[in-house]
């Protein structure tokens, strides 16, 4: 998994490529913890994400909860299999997916 961050003022875009699973999720969680201070607009670009496991979903949920307090969060470019996962797990109900 690779993480690329783009900061525009208080807007942060995080582009992720590869698998977000049990082994890689902690790195993403760590990255978010250190990046979300002062961020009001968080965008996940899932164009290159091949797979997300429940551990990855947990990180998204955590980020969503944090952003609920300080701004907004959205997710874009998720492919169909990722979208299937979001749908199956009900994450489509709490995430803003473009």
């Amino acid at each position: 998994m690779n993480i690329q961050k783009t900061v525009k003022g208080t807007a942060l875009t995080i582009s992720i490529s590869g698998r977000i699973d049990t082994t890689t999720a902690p790195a993403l969680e760590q990255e978010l913890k250190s990046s979300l201070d002062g961020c009001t607009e968080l965008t996940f670009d899932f164009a290159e994400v091949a797979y997300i496991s429940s551990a990855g979903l947990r990180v998204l949920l955590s980020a969503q909860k944090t952003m609920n307090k300080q701004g907004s969060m959205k997710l874009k470019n998720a492919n169909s299999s990722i979208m299937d996962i979001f749908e199956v797990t009900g994450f489509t109900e709490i995430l803003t997916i473009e």
Partner: protein
Amino acid sequence: MIKKFGLTFGGLQQKILNLVLVFILAIMAVVVAVSVYLSNTLTKVVDKSSEDQKSAITRISGETMSKILDSTMTQTTSMQAFIADNIFSEVRGNVMGLKEYAEYLYTHPDEYQDKPVYDPKPENDGKTSVQLQHEAAVNPADDPHLGLAANMSELMLAMYENSKVLNSCFIATVDGNIIFVDDRAGANFDADGKLQTFEVRQRPWYTGAKDTGDLYFTGIELDAFTNIPGLVCSAPVYADGKLVAVVGADIFLYQISEFINNSAKDNGFECIVNQNGEIIFSPQKEGTFKASLSDQATDLRSGENKELGELITKSLQESTGIKTVTVDNKTYYLCGEPMKTVSWAVITAVDKELTDQPTKALINSFETINTQAQDDYHNSAGKSQQTILVMTVIILVLASVVALIVAGKIVKPVECMTKRIDEISGTDLAFELDDSYHTGDEIEVLAQAFATLSKRTINYIDQITRITAEKERIGAELSLATKIQADMLPNLFPAFPERPEFDIYATMTPAKEVGGDFYDFFLIDNNHLGLVMADVSGKGVPAALFMMMSKILVNNYAQMGGSPARVLELTNAQICKNNDEEMFVTVWFGVLDITSGIVTAANAGHEFPILRKADGSFELFKDKHGFVIGGMDGMKYRDYQFKLEKGGTLFLYTDGVAEATNSQNQLFGTDRMLAALNTDPQAPPKVLLENMKKAVDEFVGDAPQFDDLTMLSVKLL
């Protein structure tokens, strides 16, 4: 490095030894070179100075000898000449006395009476007596002057008695008689006792005196009777201008030689040369200097030896001084001195070899001493070279031993260290910094480094051991937890042997020691079977704990009899109360009405269930999904219903099955799941699960299992 006899070849020890040996050999080479150079120089100096000394000795000694000889020989010769001349002048004086007396007799015959004279008498032998002799053809009685001449008897007797040199004295008459005085009367007789005669007037002394008319010395002649060599001094006696007699005196050579030989030295001799250059006296028995009878004598003045001739010629006139002349292949110092009276000369000869003898002796003794000294020197030089050689060997051996010991001492700590380090293994890891390493050099530093490393290693190993023990403990606890977790799930099959209406089977294969997946089934009442399939986010112990809580909550709420949606809502509310970790769990919860086959279910973010109608194949049942439990508080879930036909099968699973991944990163996927299930759709739940497991294993191959594999299947019979 090769080890032999306790020594290490090719190691530091040998290198140190080599260094020491090279160093010593270099010093030795210099010492030997210097000592050889010095020795050679010294030998040259000694040899040269020896030669110098020898030539100096020869020169000085020769000069000294020659000076001494010059003065002593000249003096001796002149003295000898004087002495010899004295003898002859005495003889001459005697003969002149006889001549004067005889002339007076003959000129004054009237003043004297005739006196008788007698033939020699044998009994007078050894006594001095006056005797008469005559030529064979002469009768003494016919001689008119014999009686007159006999008056000479008294004078001749007195003269003979008084002289030490005269052998006889006589007066010979012109008639062939001779009156003489000597003590050898017996000599006049032959072996038969017959009186002998001799030709008086043919004797050299007679003819000489008569012919020269003056005092005459004969050469060396043999005595008429005794044949003893000698010489005679004679003088003619004239009366009125006529020869009337010849007087004379005999001198035997041995008497002269006695006289002269007394003055002769060991290293020389003297000889007398007459006016004719003939040697008339010499102690030499042969060679040029031998005295010969007059008829055999040679005139040395005109002889082959010019140098000798010159010297003899000169010596008859004056002192010659010392001359070096080679005679008969011998080198002599010669010195001549004239004898005034007889016009002869005394020649003193000294063998140069003999005079050189002291010098030679000196040189010989010097050479002996010198040779001895040189030999001693060469010996001691040789010995000193031997000593140097022996010393070299001893020093080399000692140095080798010392170098070996020192090198050994240097190397020993290194060897100890190597040995100790080689021994280090297992629990014996301590490298003690004992006294043998306190060398104060790099070895001590190295030893300290090893000691430090050893301590660190021990600490590190302790740490590792602790960590490993901790890990083992955790591992043991985890495996215990896994067991507990597994025990928590209903895992005794057949689960409901008293219920022939349905067959149920479930498995859970965790990816880690404890998983986050769980399944559950339980009879809520006699006709309702609760079915749970859940998946906790994350893995390991936290997931397991969360799973325990979720399982108990779902079970508890389900037992309380609410609808599945209500059960999930209650569970969600309860979990969200204390969920700082923001963990969540996806849950599919359904309640099967065993009699009707109607399933009432609610899905909190879980996978689609798979359903097979009695005579159909397995298909996904795309139900309505709610959000995961624990994600958001106050989430609402919806119940939905479907019918499980008799002979139909419900298959529940977690994402571990659908998302099993092979080495090409391909997901197993629902299509493969369905295919696996449909290979034997009629199979009982246990076989279905086994088929699925087999299909997943084949697909995944060597790739690691990321997620738990949890499956549950129920079939209505």
